[in-house]
C-alpha cells in the first residue's frame, strides 16, 4: 500500500509540473491564479499521502488543513485585489 501511495505522489508531481506551464505562459493574471490554486489543491493531497507513507498521519493532516486555509485565503485576496484594480 505504501508503494501505491508513492506512485500516486509521483504522478501528482508530474501533474504539478504540467500546471506550471500554465503559470508561466498564462495570457492573463487570472489564468496564473487558477493554475496556482490547482497546484495548491494537488499539494494538499500530496501532503496527506506523504503522511501515510511516513506513518505520521496525525501531524501531516494538520499541516494539510493549514495549507488548504492559506490556499483559499490567497485566492480570495488576489480576486478581491484584481476586482478593485479593474484590470488584469
Amino acid at each position, binding site marked *: *500500500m505504501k508503494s*501505491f501511495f508513492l506512485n*500516486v505522489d509521483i*504522478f*501528482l508531481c508530474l*501533474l504539478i509540473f*504540467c*500546471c506550471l*506551464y*500554465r503559470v508561466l505562459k498564462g*495570457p*492573463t493574471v*487570472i*489564468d496564473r*491564479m*487558477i*493554475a496556482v*490554486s*490547482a497546484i495548491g*489543491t*494537488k499539494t*494538499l*493531497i500530496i501532503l*496527506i*499521502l506523504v503522511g*501515510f507513507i511516513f506513518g505520521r*498521519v*496525525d501531524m501531516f*493532516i*494538520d499541516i*494539510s*488543513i493549514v495549507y*488548504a*486555509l492559506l*490556499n*483559499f485565503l490567497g*485566492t*480570495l485576496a*488576489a*480576486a*478581491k485585489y*484584481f*476586482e478593485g484594480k*479593474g*484590470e*488584469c
Partner: protein
Amino acid sequence: MPSLLDFASLAANDIAAIILIGGGIFFFFTSTLGLLRFPDLYSRMHATGKGDTLAVLLILSGAICHHGFNLNSAKLLLIAVFVFIANPTGTHALGRAAYRCGIKPWVRRKTAADQTAEEKPS
C-alpha cells in the same frame, strides 16, 4: 478463522481505497488536461473548479477507507468538507474578478455556413 476474517476485511478496505484514489487521480488528470488545452480563461476555470473538487473528495474518501474511523479520519472529513465549500468559492471569486476586468468569453469563429444562415433566415 478470525485471522482470516480480519485479513479479508483489511483487503476489502484497501481495495476500496485503491479504487477511490484511482478515480481521484483520473479526475486530477482530466482537470489538468483541461487547464492546459482549453481555449479560454472561463473554460479553464470550469475544468479545474469542478474536477479538482471531485478529485479531492474521492482521494480523501479513499484515505478514510484506508485509515479506518478515528480522530484522524474525522480531520480528513473536515478537510473534505472545507475544500468542497472553499474551492468553488475561490473559483467563483476569480471568475467574477475576470468578468469585471472586462475579459471577453471565447466564442466560436463564424464559418461560411453560419453567415449564410444569418443572411437568409428560414
